[in-house]
């Protein structure tokens, strides 16, 4: 049986009908057309599907769409404002932290949760914060530099 749910995604309210077995990443990508959250392993290992759920970075492949009812979701598409890209997005570009780009949205959202809790993190904290996000281009050094830069 489908469930009618309301949720807020990137400051926009949606009302959608979802099957219980639809994951949040599938709702975002297929029904809402927000393909910024990537589907990598689909098992909570790679972090490509990272979104902020009520401000906390989570694997959206391990959240059911119905569980997001009444809650606030932020995806990479929600970071840019009328003033331009988010400082993290800008830093990722300037520091060469984006290679193939598949991990970037997850990396940036994990970093965003970190910087909101800890505005000036040290390198160990940065490494811990992105430890659930795998980059198979192995561009970790540039990613860490970008997060440091955005925190300045």
């Amino acid at each position, binding site marked *: *049986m489908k*469930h009618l749910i309301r949720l807020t995604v990137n400051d926009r309210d949606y009302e959608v009908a979802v*099957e*219980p*077995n*639809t*994951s949040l990443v599938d709702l975002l990508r297929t029904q809402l057309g927000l393909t910024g959250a990537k589907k990598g392993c*689909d*098992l*909570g*290992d790679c*972090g490509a599907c*990272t979104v902020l*759920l009520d401000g*906390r*970075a*989570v*694997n959206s492949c*391990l*959240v*059911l769409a*119905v*569980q997001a009812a009444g809650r606030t979701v932020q995806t990479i598409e929600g970071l840019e404002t009328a003033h331009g890209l988010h400082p993290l997005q800008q830093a990722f570009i300037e520091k060469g932290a984006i290679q193939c780009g598949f991990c970037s949205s997850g990396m940036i959202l*994990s970093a965003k*949760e970190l910087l909101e809790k800890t505005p000036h993190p040290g390198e160990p904290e940065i490494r*811990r*914060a992105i*430890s*659930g*996000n795998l980059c198979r281009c192995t561009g970790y050094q540039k990613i860490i530099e970008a997060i440091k830069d955005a925190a300045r």
Partner: protein
Amino acid sequence: MILPKFEFHEPATIGEACELMAHYRGKARPLAGGTDLLVNMKKKILSPERLVSLGRIPELSRLERSNGTLWIGAGVTVSAIAASETVDRDVPALGQGARALGTPLIRNLATIGGNIGSARPAADLPPALIAYDAVLVLQSAAGERRLPIADFFKGPGQTAAREAELIAAVAIRVPVGHAGAGYLNLGVRKAQDCNIVNAASFLELDERAEIIRAVRVALGSVGPTPLRSPSAEAVLIGQKPTEALFDLAADAARRDCSPILDFRGSAEYRRDMVGVLTRRTLSMALAEARSRN
């Protein structure tokens, strides 16, 4: 990966959740953080007809200290435990376990109840909970009962929970006097990894901080369940804590486990690491015990 089809229930109280579990008997499974259950469903290892989500039950996400006992609702997330000042002050080894679990993304979803209920032998929270002699509050439509956590685990994925019974909370008597504990885990990687060995030790010294009055040593990943090491505890109880004594206890702990071999490590390596982690967690426990009064 497609999740098998199921019906979804989202009760607002623990009582309602128990009634749903009782009504659907073996056909419903509780859904906590989903980091274990949903993965197993995607892999088609499990396909329950119904999921009873515990995510919107406010009483399950309480973490509070009252009358010397720390009460942690089953729905408290691992990241909340990892960030809790109360946990770090009263039961620091549990905070160490929480920070070692999975990744930040997993910790934001996973719950203490789920980490216990899934009964994985290498889980990060059970050793510290066993070391602190935590008690589980189990609830069903028939009522409530309490069970020491060491009696809860029966095998990989197997527990003493009865059909339609839910973990409601974990109660930990906050140690007093010269007491301390430590938790360590060893994996191939620092994050997103299954432990090769994990261990926690608890020590309580007498009033003069000279003699070990109570001790619990808990080992994970080296048997079908997290387990206690009675041999190590027997070596330690009533003795003066010294490096030499901890070496003897570490040797005893190595004899109490039955590790498997897999690609993460041989059984011999695991057994040796049980010794190392036992000795190190005992030293952590001793340092904390001596610093407290």
